[in-house]
């Protein structure tokens, strides 16, 4: 097979233009993007790292709108054994934020007229808003029953609405509707009730007063000084300090996002600092000169800037966790610098920068290509965070690659007298002894890994659990527990998205779904549900309701007679009824403000030319019947985001596991284009061993095979091969010098990924652990498997 030759570049000053072109182009593009497209942002939302829900792309946009509206909602409870103290704390907190830009909406006090407005709404639309039971009675010729029940209600002990509209609502239709609302969950209140002028609950021996609100877009920016969560925590701390008996409970996605992103930021600082400090110290110790350190730090800085710029170019934003993953770039990039400076310092045979470049270009290029291919594979992952990471790393690697080959040759080499060959300790073992030792170590690792896999085989199953990706702090977990106990609403975490060509069709579709949900309620599979059409039926239904209500008219005289009104009242009633025919309720109409606010949560509205809303089942026994139910309608989508994503990730993980051997074969072919069969065999044996060892470590850890661990395995496939390339190349000329460079580059890379393994963020931890284990195995494998390089390869190198 004809081998690929790598060019010698003897003009040291020409390639600098490549470096300048690439970096300047990215910088200018980012600048233009900023000018043309407005500010870019750093995304700190935890949920945004999850992939789009699979299998329902047509509703994904609607779901995103829905989530966006509700993800800024928060609930804060001021608690104390004494109600007055709890209320005082809540008022103090509320006063500190009301009218500020932190919240878009914030409420503590209860509107004094809300009850009157709601009953007023039911009264105003009493014919159009008939409940289903009442309408059924009317349509089945039982209007008399309704009339009699109204009289019994009037003279009975209790009505849900007042009697002061009795002359225009003698059949108590508004009262019937109110009763229906009360008997459903719609007016359920959990443990909360109005005490004095606030919402309060007594729970586990304490009084809790609730503040609810929605952060403003600037307030929800969780990592900067405007962070609403940070301000709330500070304010609550001050209040609690003044009254030690007071505690605060927090609930809502922003609190979790804040916690996770704060942890991520701390970890970025820690990982970056530790990595850099150790690398700098290592460089200073090894090279005994500040130049390699300064040049490497400058190069890393340029790489990170370029990497961030590239991500912004492609995604118009950069997620904070991309930085966490991206810190590993430091270790990878440093590999290139190490190889350059090792030869610059210790290889007097290479007189100029151009000669050094020519000497290392083949191994660096193979390393860059194989690593780049693995990063590029992540571009196809469904995780936005991984795609950003891939772009970040590819751009960063390219920058470092160009720096090592295009800029570093400018550096003047040290005086020849200062450049001496590195002295390696003599190994007093025969070649046969070394070979035996290598084999022994190899089989020891192989046996230990296989044994570990065998005894822990039960843990090696494909499993992705979204819940495990984020470890909630103990205090926040306790907060959510108490909040859930107080609110006690019974949401199962899944729901329906209903669609229609226009609002009227959407409401009709909701009603069709609601009819099926009512059957589930009758069968005991569901307690209740929420939907916009419960408050605002479709116009068709409202008109049918009105038509049904006409059947009450013959009973008007009798009704008023029993209620003690003069006969002419019936005629007034009929005129009023006729006028009410046009009185229909529509979304956005004159419905009570608080109900309108609620409907705006459920009512998603127009997205891409189609209308969407959410229907929320509550206290359902199992979800399976509802999944089946959704399949019966073209316009209904069942949404259980977490479960669907987990299922999708499991499938993806399985596919990746199946593709991994295929990828190995493809890379083997590529390697064979450059190396001899013997070296190709050595190189390609590495992925097998590192996968085996990594799986064994994951099995011991009980981590299972998740998406992130399998992604890590694919990545180490690319990174791990580098060591074989370097080691095999080293046999040609520089020998132990390159082994030394490999050891140093392994140390820096392993340091970066090893630091990730210490992360508290589970995906980062698993990813770091996987890559660290794989890299360590790859490094040891490179040492064990590197024997005499074939003469064929000698020919191809310069």
């Amino acid at each position: 097979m004809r081998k690929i030759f790598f060019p010698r570049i003897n003009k040291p000053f020409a390639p600098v233009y490549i470096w300048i072109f690439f970096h300047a182009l990215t910088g200018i593009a980012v600048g233009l993007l900023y000018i043309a497209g407005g500010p870019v942002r750093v995304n700190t939302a935890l949920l945004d790292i999850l992939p789009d829900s699979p299998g329902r792309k047509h509703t994904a946009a609607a779901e995103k709108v829905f989530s966006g509206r509700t993800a800024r909602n928060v609930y804060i409870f001021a608690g104390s054994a004494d109600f007055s103290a709890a209320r005082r704390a809540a008022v103090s907190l509320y006063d500190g934020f009301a009218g500020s830009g932190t919240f878009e909406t914030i409420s503590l006090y209860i509107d004094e007229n809300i009850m009157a407005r709601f009953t007023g709404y039911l009264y105003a639309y009493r014919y159009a808003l008939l409940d289903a039971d009442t309408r059924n009675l009317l349509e089945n010729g039982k209007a008399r029953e309704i009339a009699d029940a109204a009289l019994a209600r009037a003279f009975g002990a209790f009505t849900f609405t007042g009697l002061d509209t009795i002359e225009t609502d003698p059949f108590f239709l508004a009262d019937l509707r109110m009763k229906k609302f009360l008997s459903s969950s719609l007016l359920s209140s959990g443990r909360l009730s109005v005490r004095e002028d606030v919402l309060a609950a007594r729970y586990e021996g304490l009084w809790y007063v609730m503040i609810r609100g929605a952060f403003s877009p600037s307030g929800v920016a969780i990592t900067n000084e405007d962070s609403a969560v940070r301000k709330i925590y500070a304010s609550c701390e001050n209040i609690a300090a003044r009254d030690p008996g007071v505690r605060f409970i927090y609930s809502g996605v922003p609190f979790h996002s804040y916690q996770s992103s704060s942890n991520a930021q701390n970890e970025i600082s820690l990982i970056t600092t530790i990595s850099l400090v150790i690398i700098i110290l290592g460089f200073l110790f090894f090279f005994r000169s500040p130049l390699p350190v300064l040049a490497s730090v400058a190069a890393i800085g340029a790489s990170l800037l370029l990497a961030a710029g590239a991500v912004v170019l492609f995604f118009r934003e950069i997620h904070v966790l991309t930085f966490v993953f991206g810190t590993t770039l430091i270790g990878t990039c440093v590999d290139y610098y190490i190889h350059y400076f090792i030869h610059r310092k210790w290889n007097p045979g290479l007189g100029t920068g151009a000669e050094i470049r020519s000497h290392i270009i083949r191994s660096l290029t193979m390393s860059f290509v194989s690593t780049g291919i693995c990063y590029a594979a992540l571009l196809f992952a469904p995780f936005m965070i991984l795609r950003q990471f891939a772009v970040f790393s590819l751009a960063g690697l390219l920058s470092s690659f160009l720096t090592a080959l295009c800029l570093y040759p400018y550096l003047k080499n040290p005086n020849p007298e200062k450049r001496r060959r590195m002295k390696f300790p003599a190994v007093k073992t025969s070649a046969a002894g070394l070979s035996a030792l290598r084999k022994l170590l190899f089989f020891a690792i192989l046996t230990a890994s296989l044994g570990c896999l065998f005894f822990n085989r039960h843990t090696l199953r494909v499993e992705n659990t979204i819940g495990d990706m984020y470890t909630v702090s103990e205090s926040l977990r306790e907060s959510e527990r108490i909040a859930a106990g107080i609110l006690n609403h019974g949401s199962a975490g899944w729901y329906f998205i209903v669609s229609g060509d226009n609002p009227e069709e959407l409401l009709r579709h909701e009603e069709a779904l609601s009819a099926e949900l009512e059957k589930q309620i009758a069968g005991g599979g569901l307690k209740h549900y929420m939907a916009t059409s419960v408050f605002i039926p479709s116009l068709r239904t409202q008109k049918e309701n009105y038509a049904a209500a006409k059947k009450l008219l013959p009973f008007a005289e009798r009704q008023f007679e029993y209620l003690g009104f003069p006969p002419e009242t019936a005629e007034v009633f009929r005129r009023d009824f006729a006028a009410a025919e046009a009185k229909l309720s529509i979304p956005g109409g004159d419905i009570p403000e608080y109900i309108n606010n609620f409907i705006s949560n459920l009512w998603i509205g127009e997205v891409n030319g189609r209308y969407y809303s959410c229907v929320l089942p509550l206290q359902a026994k199992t979800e399976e019947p509802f999944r089946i139910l959704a399949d019966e309608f073209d316009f209904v989508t069942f949404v259980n985001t977490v479960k669907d994503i987990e299922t999708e990730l499991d499938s993806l993980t399985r596919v990746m596991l199946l593709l991994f051997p295929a990828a190995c074969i493809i890379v083997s072919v590529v390697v064979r284009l450059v190396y001899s069969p013997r070296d190709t065999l050595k190189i390609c044996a590495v992925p097998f061993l590192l996968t085996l060892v990594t799986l064994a470590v994951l099995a011991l850890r009980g981590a299972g095979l998740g998406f992130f661990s399998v992604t890590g395995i694919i990545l180490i496939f690319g990174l791990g091969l580098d060591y074989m390339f370097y080691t095999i190349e080293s046999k040609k000329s520089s020998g132990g010098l390159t082994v030394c460079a490999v050891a140093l580059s392994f140390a820096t890379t392993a340091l970066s990924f090893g630091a990730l393994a210490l992360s508290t963020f589970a995906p980062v931890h698993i990813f770091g652990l996987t890559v660290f284990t794989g890299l360590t195995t790859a490094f040891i494998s490179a040492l064990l498997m590197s024997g005499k390089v074939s003469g064929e390869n000698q020919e191809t190198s310069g």
Partner: protein
Amino acid sequence: MSRFTCFFAVCIALLGGAPLYPQTPPDNPVFQFPLSPATLPRFHEICGVLAKRPVTKGIFTQKKNISRLNRSLVSGGNFIIDAKLGIVWETLSPFPSTMAVGRDYIIQSVPGGAKTKLEAAGNETFLRLSETLSAVFTGDAQRLLENFKNYFTETGAAWTLGLIPLEGSIRSFAAAIIMSGDSVIRSVTVHEQNGDSIRYELSRHSFPEELGSHEKNLFSAH
């Protein structure tokens, strides 16, 4: 947590967010006499008498006054107060109906019509309402003190108790309650937010040890 919790808060508000009781309580002399250390022992004594009876039965006359229309609706029937089960209002005339208020439910029925049961489990406002009604009619002194601003006056053996609910959820149904009696409750007047009122006059009290099966069945939705 759920994104819909705000709505539950709205629901609570719907039940409980009615206007606070007018700054001036109903025109009744009892509201000039807040419960004081001097009257507290007598308050406890009267509540003790009411509370010691497991069951109280009798008849009632109900008069609903609709202030805006200047009309009244008068009805009558039987009542049952069971310390454990709850309260039943069995209206007999002019139109029969029954309402039973248990610890965590309300059952309404009309002759020939199905019973409808409103579950209060998980609905704090309903539970509070039920608890309050129970406290009022069974003389649960502790709950009365916890949930109302209490007023008390006494003339001879006759006493009058004025109650203003502390919680908005209760105020939406009853802005103020005035009870009067001697060894038993003789009348209860519930003043609503809009100026309407309901007055119950109780008579022919009896105190059986327990209820008959028919009476117990009134507390059942079946």
